[in-house]
């Protein structure tokens, strides 16, 4: 309600015509994300990342790695958002990001034997992701009437996650048919990434609102933060982000408390992704109706409940299922919903820059949270660390209710 009072230029959508609520541009971007995630996740699934992330690395290093990967793209997100607005061509900037990630798929086989080189290639892949995210989200908002933003983002994120789920299945299917043929996996991954770039270039219409080139300077972008609505959103999202422990810690916590074999660790993100995929669209729609910020905060409350369960160290498969489902709900309530909440607070000419600020603040904060949690877990143990994070998350959620 407060969202529409801030800005309500878009036509209100009648609830019964939800079929037409998601514009073709959003579906197109969803298809691009689906294929790209398929391509990216089939590579991630076969890289020995699970070993880097494995229990043997030590909590402090685990936190640093998680933090590094989450935070590394922060600057490029801002750059991507800024150039999208500056050039008035979010689609072109997004294409650069998707193209860069596609090109890195060819570099993986060459980097195969050296861990440092693999790190560099992954870095380039993440850079591509950083560049494309803000312009892509800006295109979603520019193509969608304000009233349907939550649903539009929900649909996009659900498609995105579907791709992430399909990727490993394709990869292990290929490896089973062509025993141990990793170059084939990288080759197919490259082809998929190229197809996604073609689909984006040819079949996705850039939203009309973005054509006009805005003469923004970086200063104008920073001036956005002086606006109380966006600043409050950024600060609250960051404060809540610091209180998140990082995905890998949650999965390690689940694996340990449920007493699962370490080999089950790579499978746990799938459970989270399934819940996220199933719920992203309905929760986005709910957010349009009851208020996006409320749903965003509710997602953190669900995450808090998961921390409490892990801190209480309840044992068993059921606990693992509950925590992973809660983790999926958390993503469905926060990932697209935050963008849907923030975008009406930003003028159209600065849409990508504004969204990049929110995303960057959130991802840097989440990275910091993972590092802090890693240090804490290394100093004490997983359980008390989860308990402490539950407490600070509660405080942040309470503070977050004051954001208007």
């Amino acid at each position: 309600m407060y969202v529409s009072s801030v800005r309500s230029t878009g036509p209100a959508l009648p609830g019964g015509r939800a079929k037409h609520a998601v514009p073709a541009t959003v579906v197109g971007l969803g298809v691009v994300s689906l294929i790209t995630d398929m391509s990216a996740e089939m590579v991630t699934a076969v890289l020995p990342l699970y070993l880097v992330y494995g229990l043997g690395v030590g909590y402090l290093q685990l936190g640093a790695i998680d933090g590094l990967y989450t935070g590394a793209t922060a600057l490029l997100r801002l750059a991507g958002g800024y150039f999208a607005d500056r050039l008035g061509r979010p689609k072109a900037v997004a294409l650069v990001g998707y193209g860069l990630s596609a090109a890195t798929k060819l570099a993986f086989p060459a980097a195969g034997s050296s861990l440092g080189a693999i790190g560099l290639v992954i870095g380039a892949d993440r850079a591509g992701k950083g560049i494309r995210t803000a312009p892509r989200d800006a295109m979603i908002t520019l193509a969608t009437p304000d009233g349907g933003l939550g649903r539009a983002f929900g649909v996009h994120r659900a498609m995105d996650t579907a791709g992430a789920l399909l990727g490993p299945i394709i990869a292990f299917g290929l490896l089973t048919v062509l025993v141990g043929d990793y170059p084939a996996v990288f080759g197919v991954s490259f082809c998929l990434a190229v197809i996604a770039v073609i689909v984006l270039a040819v079949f996705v219409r850039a939203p009309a609102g973005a054509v006009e080139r805005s003469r923004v300077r970086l200063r104008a972008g920073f001036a956005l933060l002086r606006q109380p609505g966006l600043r409050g959103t950024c600060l609250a999202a960051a404060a809540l982000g610091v209180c998140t422990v990082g995905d890998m810690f949650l999965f390690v916590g689940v694996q340990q408390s449920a007493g699962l074999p370490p080999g089950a660790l790579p499978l746990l993100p799938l459970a989270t992704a399934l819940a996220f995929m199933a719920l992203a669209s309905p929760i986005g729609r709910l957010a349009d109706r009851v208020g996006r910020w409320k749903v965003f905060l509710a997602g953190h409350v669900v995450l808090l409940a998961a921390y409490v369960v892990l801190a209480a160290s309840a044992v068993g498969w059921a606990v693992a299922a509950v925590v992973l489902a809660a983790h999926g709900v958390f993503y469905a309530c926060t990932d697209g919903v935050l963008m849907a909440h923030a975008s009406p607070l930003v003028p159209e000419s600065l849409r990508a820059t504004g969204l990049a600020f929110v995303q960057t603040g959130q991802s840097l904060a989440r990275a910091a949270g993972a590092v802090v949690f890693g240090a804490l877990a290394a100093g004490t143990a997983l359980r008390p660390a989860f308990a402490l994070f539950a407490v600070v998350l509660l405080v942040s959620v309470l503070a977050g209710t004051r954001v208007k």
Partner: protein
Amino acid sequence: MRRTWAGIAAVVITVAAGAVFVGSRTGGAVAEQPLDLARGGLLYVDESGRVRQDDRVGPSCQRVDVAAGTLACLRATAVPDQAELVVTKPGAGPRTISEWGTPSRVRVSPSGRLVGWTVFRSGDSYLGGAGTFSTTAGIFDLDTGSHYGSLEDFALTVDGKPYPAEDLNYWGVTFARDDRTFYATVRSAGGTWLVRGDLRGRTLTALRRNVECPSLSPDGTRVAYKFREGDRWRLHVLSLADGRDVPLADPAHLDDQPQWLDDRTVAYGRDKAIHAVPADGTGAPVVVRPAASSPAVVR
């Protein structure tokens, strides 16, 4: 409209290129050929992960060993973090043992009766610094079907006293001729030891510090191993009778379990090639086989 068709054409071309690429990998795959395990000669794993013996192409394995006609092949499965050991003994069907972890070492006893393997449970080899990795080593008796699941269940003695620590990691099993005695590496509290194991008594005795990945010579008198100096390992040969220890003529850093080509020559994988060096510390390393790893000798 023209743009749409161009887009469709581009997608179709990409899909076709991908299909041709995958198809070429399928077509290029050579069917598995029977290896001649009576004839002698060198087995190894080639660049594409297949076992080779001269011009014959065997099964897909990361590590291979052979003795008295028994072939042991340790490989990763399509399921992440899982390994399987496939053993074929003359006169019996192939036997598969599944293990969580990634393949690291495999050995067959000289009689072909026992197989020993090592998998990494976490921490890809030595990544993440010393002491953060975890291995599991086991032994299987093909005659009795006894599965010595993990050496961690054996009783370890260090300096004459029972050693009850929890942080034990075993790897690199090598067998003596009696099908009872074996040697391996144990790591605990930052130190590594050569241990001698007794399969019947389920005991392990630490013999010497800083020894990793032992390999018993065919005559059973010496052990080739990696000697640890900080983060570097160098190939040495230890005489079991008198404890005399000779560094071999390859000063390069080594990360492999050596293999005796005969009683005078030790082979090992380094820089994506199989090298060999005299076992008495003289001479110089030579490349036995480029683009290969995991040497095994048919005897």
